[in-house]
């Protein structure tokens, strides 16, 4: 009897271990598969119009085809950058709904709100009640909304550029849906010209004068922007060497020790991390006192609404960064 009682648990324990082992192996296989197939969102594109020219078709960031039989005139915008882009394209009067965070341009504040910016805070009822014929949502955080509105037959397009070129493409896309192609081309031309001007100015800065920069996305936990993010992109384009250029994630936690070791000469931070960013807070962090940027007082606050939105004002943030980092070339930034 004792023998039986002893053997049974041990085999059972073995089974348990096999079960756990199987799960672990399975999850790593899946992990490996995911890593390889890591599905990137696609840049949306307009499709050639149908034969009879009666409808506009497009493919959005989630590879969904959306069709429009008439030009949308009642648009709900669910992100501040999209709202700014719509206004820049002269479509401000077509926006019927926005989020609490859509605070620019000032005219935007008069548009009806449909909730806060996060998925949880958005009221589907309020959106339906506005009878929109186009909803522009964020491709990543708003996916559950797409399921709802697809079923209701309300056109919803997954948006959210991840770099400047994608912003240009999405501007053109909105232009083609709304019949504002000319405005979209003008906007893109204007911004491209400005970008080229910045690049020309930056190219005059010698390689040894380029400054090491840390961009603080968040303070606790300490987070930064990697080179694949649009913030990483404007840092590099503005002639800075991102001290965390070896990151693969767009926005991620980083180690404070590594930051001290990489000794940035400039630190940029947006206006707020939920509370206002205080310049004095940097020097008091353990080990940061000897970081070049802290020692030399080269910590700069950048307008958070400009730098954190991949929208038409992103180049304003970039210009501000160049002026702060390389004041000697600032004169060349004007057209």
């Amino acid at each position, binding site marked *: 009897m004792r023998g039986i009682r002893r053997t049974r648990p041990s085999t059972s324990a073995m089974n348990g271990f096999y079960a756990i082992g199987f799960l672990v192996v399975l999850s790593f296989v899946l992990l490996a598969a995911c890593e390889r197939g890591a599905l990137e969102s696609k840049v949306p594109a307009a499709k050639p119009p149908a034969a009879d020219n009666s409808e506009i078709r497009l493919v959005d960031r989630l590879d969904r085809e959306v069709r429009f039989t008439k030009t949308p005139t009642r648009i709900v915008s669910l992100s501040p950058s999209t709202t700014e882009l719509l206004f820049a394209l002269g479509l401000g009067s077509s926006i019927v709904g926005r989020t609490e965070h859509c605070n620019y341009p000032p005219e935007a504040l008069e548009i009806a709100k449909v909730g806060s910016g996060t998925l949880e805070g958005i009221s589907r009822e*309020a959106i339906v009640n506005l009878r929109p014929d186009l909803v522009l949502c964020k491709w990543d955080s708003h996916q559950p909304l797409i399921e709802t509105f697809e079923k209701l037959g309300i056109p919803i397009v997954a948006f959210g550029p991840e770099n400047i070129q994608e912003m240009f493409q999405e501007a053109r896309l909105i232009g083609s849906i709304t019949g504002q192609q000319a405005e979209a081309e003008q906007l893109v031309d204007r911004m491209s010209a400005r970008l080229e001007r910045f690049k020309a100015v930056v190219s005059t800065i010698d390689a040894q004068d380029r400054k090491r920069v840390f961009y603080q996305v968040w303070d606790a936990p300490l987070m930064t922007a990697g080179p694949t993010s649009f913030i990483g992109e404007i840092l590099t384009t503005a002639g800075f060497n991102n001290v965390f250029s070896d990151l693969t994630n767009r926005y991620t936690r980083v180690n404070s020790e590594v930051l001290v070791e990489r000794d940035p000469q400039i630190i940029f931070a947006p206006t707020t991390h939920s509370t206002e960013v205080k310049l004095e807070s940097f020097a008091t962090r353990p080990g940061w006192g000897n970081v070049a940027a802290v020692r030399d007082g080269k910590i700069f606050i950048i307008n958070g609404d400009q730098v954190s939105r991949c929208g038409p004002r992103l180049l304003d943030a970039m210009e501000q960064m160049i002026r702060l980092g390389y004041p000697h070339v600032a004169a060349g930034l004007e057209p």
Partner: protein
Amino acid sequence: MILLVAFGLLLALAVSSLAVGAVPIPMAGVVDWMLNKEDSGLSVAQRTILWDLRLPRIFIACFVGGSLAAAGVGFQGLFRNVLADPYVIGASSGAALGATLVVVAGVKLSLGGLGATVIGPMLGSIAVVLVVFVVGSLGRHGSALTLLLAGIAISSMTNAIVSLLMFLNDQKAIVILSWLMGSLAGSDWSVVWVTSVAAPLGFILLWGIARQMDAFLLGDAASQSLGLSLMQFRMLLIVGASLLTASAVGSAGIIGFVGLISPQIARLLIGAKHCWLIPMSSCVGAIILIVGDAIARTVVAPAELPVGIVTAMLGCPFFLSLLLSSKTAGRM
């Protein structure tokens, strides 16, 4: 009797909450609309809101609240501990893993209009509970404690895998988060159909062993001497309770508190006999979630509050007042 009252209250609240939301719709219009009158005076947008958004949402609130509350009774019985909740042996971490895998792998399959993001969490939650049950009941004694500890260990590992997947798929982390947040806002009819099958099934399973659950409370040895087969009983209970939990997490994500507090409230109202306690707890859970969600979608309109905040702030004072005024409190 009190059960009938609770059920009546539930029905009344479900109907009247149809008139409550970010977009005001007059009760008279709602009643006319329900009676199928041609001239309900509602706009097309209002009718869409009622039929496609609000009604399924109320159904789901009812099913999810009822399911979590019944599952809570099940797990509290299983562990003979009133602090157990439906997620105690891994259902929530399993649901999170299911949702994460679906998003990360970009699975787009849908079964009868049911998205992968509903199926994923359901299967994940059942799978993890199953593993916990197999591992936990094979130990030396196969006791409830082993099960509980196995649940804690495996949940932790599952959560770690979820976090790791989110870290490795930085671009999708926010997508995953948007599916993990417990919310009733995404409710639609396809989800109603599946919960209205899965939840009652789990409920009947659990209710069917109500008498055994009473016996089980006496202790392992005593209940065995009453003729209870522990292994079989535990298995039925876990299957029923995790079916309920899975249908809840699949429909609405992870909503806390309801599954923990509803059984306690029900116990104070109707006593600890499971054949009454299970339906009563379900009624209480459904009421809490319907009222909580009605408040969540109006109080900061047009924005919405996470429903968990409301249910906790609402349920807690109610529970405490019952607890302090009840003579039976000590016998919980």
